[in-house]
C-alpha cells in the first residue's frame, strides 16, 4: 500500500463582516470525510465546535449557527473580543482553518407542540438561530426576542422571520424596535400572555442571568447556554466547570445548556475573568506583530 489519502482540509468559503466586530464565516471541507463535512451531517441545535486558526492558536468554542450537509459546510458567527477571534477575522476565503472539531456539547432538548420563548442578545443571536429553527419545525408556537445595543448590532433579524410566529426586536438606544433590554420585552410578554412552557436565552452572561431571574419568578424552565472559558471542549480539563443547583458540571460535556434558574451566575461571571490581565497582554502582543507584518 502506498501513502494514504491526502488528509481533508477545512477551508473558509465565505467570510463577511455583518456588524461592527461581528463576522459571519462558513467553513467547508475538501472531502466527505473532513471535519466540516461530518459536523454538517451530525450537528444538532445547541452544539458547538472547537476551532483553532493556526499553530500558535488557542482552541476556542463557537456555536454552530447553521449547517448544510450537501455543501459540507458549517456556518459560524463570532464577535472579535481578543486574540483568537481577531485572528479568525483576518482569514480570507480560500484560507485554511487548521483545526475544527465537533459537534460538541449536548444538543438542545427540542420540545413539540409547546408555547416557547426564544431570546437572543448580541452575538448570542447567532446561537439562538438553529434553536429557534428546530423548535419552529417541531411544531411549537415560537416567540423570538432579539436584542442588541444598537441597530447595527441587531444581526440576522431577517433570517428569523420565517421561523418565528412572533418576532420582537429591541435595542438599548431605541434605534430599532422597542427601546430597552430584552428583559423589558420579556416582562411585557409574560405580563400579556403568562408564563411560557419553556424558554431559551442566549447572550451576554449578565443578560442570561437577568432573564433567568424572570423565569424563576414565573416558574418556567429557561435554557441558557453557558460560556465559561474552555480549553479542550471534551471533558478533559475541568476548566469549564460551572455550578448548577450547587453541583459541579463541565459545561462542554454536561452542557452547554443548563436551566438558568439553577445556575450560579455570579460564579460564572467571575470565572470568565480568569485570564483578563494575561489576555490583554496577548492582544497587545498580537496587534504589535500585525503592525510589524503590515510594514
Amino acid at each position, binding site marked *: *500500500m*502506498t*501513502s*494514504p*489519502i491526502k*488528509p481533508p482540509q477545512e477551508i473558509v468559503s465565505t467570510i463577511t463582516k455583518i456588524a461592527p466586530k461581528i463576522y459571519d464565516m462558513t467553513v467547508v471541507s475538501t472531502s466527505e470525510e473532513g*471535519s466540516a463535512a*461530518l*459536523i454538517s451531517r*451530525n450537528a444538532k441545535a445547541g452544539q458547538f465546535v472547537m476551532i*483553532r486558526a493556526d499553530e*500558535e*492558536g*488557542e*482552541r476556542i468554542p463557537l456555536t454552530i449557527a447553521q449547517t448544510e450537509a450537501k455543501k459540507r459546510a458549517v456556518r459560524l458567527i463570532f464577535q472579535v473580543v481578543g*486574540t*483568537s477571534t481577531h*485572528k479568525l477575522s483576518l482569514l480570507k476565503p480560500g484560507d485554511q482553518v*487548521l*483545526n*475544527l*472539531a*465537533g*459537534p*460538541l456539547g*449536548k444538543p438542545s432538548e427540542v420540545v413539540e407542540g409547546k408555547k416557547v420563548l426564544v431570546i437572543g442578545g448580541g452575538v448570542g443571536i447567532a446561537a439562538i438561530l438553529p434553536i429557534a429553527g428546530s423548535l419552529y419545525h417541531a411544531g411549537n408556537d415560537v416567540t423570538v426576542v432579539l436584542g442588541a445595543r444598537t441597530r447595527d448590532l441587531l444581526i440576522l433579524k431577517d433570517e428569523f422571520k420565517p421561523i418565528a410566529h412572533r418576532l420582537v426586536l429591541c435595542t438599548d438606544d431605541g434605534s430599532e424596535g422597542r427601546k430597552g433590554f430584552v428583559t423589558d420585552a420579556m416582562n411585557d410578554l409574560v405580563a400579556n400572555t403568562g408564563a411560557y412552557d419553556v424558554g431559551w436565552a442566549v447572550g451576554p452572561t449578565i443578560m442570561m442571568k437577568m432573564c433567568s431571574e424572570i423565569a424563576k419568578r414565573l416558574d418556567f424552565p429557561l435554557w441558557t447556554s453557558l460560556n465559561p472559558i474552555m*480549553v*479542550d471542549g*471534551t*471533558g*478533559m*480539563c*475541568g*476548566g469549564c*466547570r460551572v*455550578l448548577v443547583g450547587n453541583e*459541579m458540571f*463541565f459545561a462542554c*460535556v*454536561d452542557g452547554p445548556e443548563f436551566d438558568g434558574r439553577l445556575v450560579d451566575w455570579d*460564579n460564572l461571571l*467571575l*470565572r470568565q*475573568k*480568569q*485570564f483578563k490581565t*494575561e*489576555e490583554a*497582554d*496577548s492582544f497587545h*502582543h*498580537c496587534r504589535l506583530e500585525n503592525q510589524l507584518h503590515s510594514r
Partner: protein
Amino acid sequence: MLNRSKQKTKLIERAPEERRKDFLEVNDGYSLTEAVSEADRCLQCRNAPCIQGCPVAIDIPGFIKAIQEKDLERSWEILYATNRLPAICGRVCPQEKQCEERCTVGKIKNSEPVAIGRLERFTADWKRKAGFSPAPVELTHTERIAVVGSGPAGLTVAAELAQNGYAVEVFEALHEPGGVLTYGIPEFRLPKEIVRAEIEGIRKLDVVLRTDFIVGKTIFFEEIRKRYQAIFLGIGAGAPKFMNVPGTNLNGVFSASEFLTRVNLMKAFRFPHADTPITIGKNVIVVGGGNVAMDAARSALRLGAQTVKIVYRRTETELPARWEEYHHAMEEGVEFLWLSNPIAYLPDSDSRVKGARIQKMGLGEPDASGRRKPVPLPGVEETLECDCVIEAIGQSAHRILSEGFKEVRLNRWGYIEVDPETLMTSVPGVFAGGDIVTGAATVIEAMGAGKTAAKGIMNYLRTIG
C-alpha cells in the same frame, strides 16, 4: 568485559538551579562509552527475570548485549521488535517497579540494578538521530479496524495490526496525537519532539491518523461499528477529579489536567507567542503526591513561581510518585508539606484564591491498599498563603464515554469491563485497553494492553472471517 560496579554508571544531570529555569531535559542521556560501560554490568542471565517485569516483554539481555558489542543497529532491531515507543518508555517507565525491580544485579547486596531504562533510551535516541524509516507492510487482510484514542494503548494496537497487514485508522479527539504523552507529561521529562518522532514511525506503517475527530460525536458509535470490522477503545481516563472543598471554583484554582494541558498541548509556556494563557502564581500549592503532582509542581517552578509547595495527606513513605521525580522536584526547590490536606480555599476581594486552609493529618491503621490511612487531627489547622492552587488528585473515565458508547458495559467505577484474555468488551468486536479499563496506570501497561488487544482482535477477525 563484566563491569562489577555496584552503582549504575553515573548520568550527568544539569544543575537544579539551571534546569528549574527552562523546559529542557534534566540530562542528555548516556554517551556511547557510558552506555557500553553500563551494558557491561548486565550478567546476561539465562532466565532473564527482568523480562518478566516488563509488560511488553522486551528481550532485555538481547538488546543490552548488542550495546556491549557496540552493534547499535541490532540493539535497535531487538528493541523495536517488541516496543514501538522505546525513546518514550526509556524515559518515563517506572523501571524501579518493573524490569529493574527484578534484575539479578539489583538483588546483590548494596547493588543497584542494571539501568535498563537508560540503556533503552540510549539505543532509541541513537536510532532517531541516525534516522529511521520503517517500511509499510503489505496489506494482507480486507478487514478495517478503527482505533479510538491515540495514547500509548491506541498507538500500540495500531502498530501491531498494521505490522500484521491490517488496515488501521486511529481517531483522536484533540488536535495532536499521543494522549497523555502529548498533553500531560511535560517537555522537560518527555520532549514533544520525541513523541512526534515515535508517532511518525507508526504513521509510516500506513496507519491513518485522524485528529480533531471525536468518536461518538463527529461520527456516532453505531456508524463506526458499521464501517469497521473491529474497534479498539483506548480513550484514557482523562476526566479530572476535584476535592470539591469550598472555594474550588475561585480563579487561580486549576486541575492538574487543565494546568498541564495549557502548558504542554497549548504551549502556554511560550505565551504570549502562543495564544493560550496560564496564570503564573508567585506562590503555588499543588495538592497530591503522584507523578502528576510532581509534573505540575516542576512546571510551575519553570513558569516562574517563587515558591511551590506540594501538600500531601500522607508521608514521604507512602508517596506514590516515582522516587526519581520526587528527588528531582526536591532538588529544584519544590517544598513538601506532609500529613496535610486542604479543606477550603480562601478568596481575596476579587474572588481569586489567596490562601488555603490546611487540615493536619495523622496516620491510622493500614487501609485496603496496605498504606496507613490518613486521619484528620481535630482542630489542628493552618493557613497557607498562595495565589494558585493545582489539584492533582486523580482522574476518572473520559466523560464522552457514557454518552457516546451506551452499549459498552462499564464496571462500578465507570471503567470499561473487558475479558482479561482478549480485552473484548460486552459488545462483540469492540475491544478496550489502557487507562479506560484499569484506571490511571502507566504508559507501558497501556502498551501491554495494546499488544494483548491486537492479538484478541486478530483472533476475533479470524473467527468471524
